């Protein structure tokens, strides 16, 4: 709590030693690019797929809260240790341990050491994925996203262009944001040959 305490503008959790905006930056730079690997890890180690969005959120919250105290030195190891611990907690907490829920805990220990392929920063690949995410949207939503994203129009301009209400455009765009980000971070990258 000694250094860097002159500014409290970034919200601080009680007793936190790092400002929220520093953690935001770190999180975006170090943790989010690991999301594809994390998703692979979760999908591999947790049978109930409908839990995965929740698990990911819980892991991110734990990592973020820890980083508010002290930025972890080895982000990747820290992320996967957190993920593994959460899965172990979940298995233990369940009143009835779903037999198929997790592979046995020992397997989890091993898996944490091999977190799967790291995200490859290949822009060509990213572009392909972006295109795929766009293609996945329903036609009208895709049109709204393209007008907003590629032509740089505002919501009002898009509404006028498409002849629909701003509220509908907002829904289309919000959906597009979620799909594109999911694709960008969450989907395992195809390996470059």
């Amino acid at each position, binding site marked *: 709590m000694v250094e860097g305490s002159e500014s409290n503008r970034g919200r601080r959790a009680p007793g936190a030693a790092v400002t929220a905006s520093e953690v935001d930056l770190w999180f975006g*730079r170090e943790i989010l690019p690991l999301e594809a690997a994390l998703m692979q890890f979760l999908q591999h180690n947790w049978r109930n797929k409908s839990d995965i969005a929740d698990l990911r959120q819980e892991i991110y*919250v734990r990592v973020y809260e820890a980083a508010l105290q002290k930025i972890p030195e080895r982000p990747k190891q820290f992320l996967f240790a957190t993920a593994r611990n959460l899965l172990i907690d979940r298995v233990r907490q369940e009143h009835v341990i779903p037999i198929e829920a997790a592979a046995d805990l020992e397997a989890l220990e091993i898996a944490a050491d091999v977190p799967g392929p790291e995200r490859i920063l290949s*822009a060509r690949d990213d*572009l392909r994925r972006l295109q795929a995410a766009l293609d996945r949207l329903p036609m009208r939503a895709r049109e709204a996203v393209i007008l907003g994203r590629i032509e740089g129009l505002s919501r009002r301009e898009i509404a006028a262009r498409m002849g629909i209400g701003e509220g509908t455009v907002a829904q289309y*765009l919000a959906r597009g944001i979620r799909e594109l980000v999911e694709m960008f971070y969450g989907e395992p990258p195809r390996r470059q040959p």
Partner: protein
Amino acid sequence: MSEARDTAGTAREIDARAAFWVERRYFGEWTEDDQSALDAWLAQSVAHRVAFVRLDTGWRQTERLVALRPFKPEQTEPRARNWTLRAAAALAIAAMLGLAGMHYVSQPRDRIYATGVGGHEVIAFADGSKIELNTDTVLRARMTTKERTVWLDKGEAFFRVHHNAANPFVVIASGHRVTDLGTSFLVRRDRDRLEVALLEGRVRFAVAGAHAQSSLLKPGDDVVATAESVSLTHESRGELAGKLTWRRGLVVFKDTALADAVRELDRYNNEKLVVADPAIAHRKISGTIPVGDIDGFIRVVRDVLGLHVQNDGNEVVITR
């Protein structure tokens, strides 16, 4: 399992709410009240904050990728074939700018366009304006119905502006300011030198820092500003055209000193040319060659100037 399902529902709900905020901030009219409401929501829980940071950061990333797509290929066929390089450069820039970009009060609608070494892109904007980026260039644009501002952070760009008296188009480079009054013009930013050449129409050029000191340029005017001085010359159409040959993928040398020719070509190529001997740096060279054609240039240097050229893997060294 019902408990787990409830929280899963919550994760999705939070995500949807975060998307609502990101959408609003990018596409709606963002007010102080909106910012306060967002701040309050973010302060409610770390889960809110994490979801927002994820979508906001991710959305910025997709923006930079979109900016790299060839826009309206009807203009000129995109010449740079090296996608990876261009994209890598842009990603590096994205990483560099990430820090500034993360302040949630910053303008969310600024967009970044970049070309790598040898790159060449045409950006067509919704207002009808077009910007053509030359090699190794970084440009930020804030194009809204109220404001049209472009920052040339690096490199060279040719502007054809769709004039709108109610919403002037401003280019800022090295602190100097060019305000369009209906025009096409060229702005080139080198390390210690900024050049503005006006082809058509009128622009107002304001020197960095000196608000009062601005002048109206006429077609043919060519301003060169360095740290020490600002000079204005008037050039013929032919001379101006010579500055724009890159738009057709060519460099033109006309009694150009070898050292200057090499410096010009280096802007377009990763393979660097070196004039090892000061005695030959002033030898003159003339001709037109494609910007990427180092081999062609080497042939001219060898056959016409009679110099020795050696490729040592990293550099192409020119000696007597």
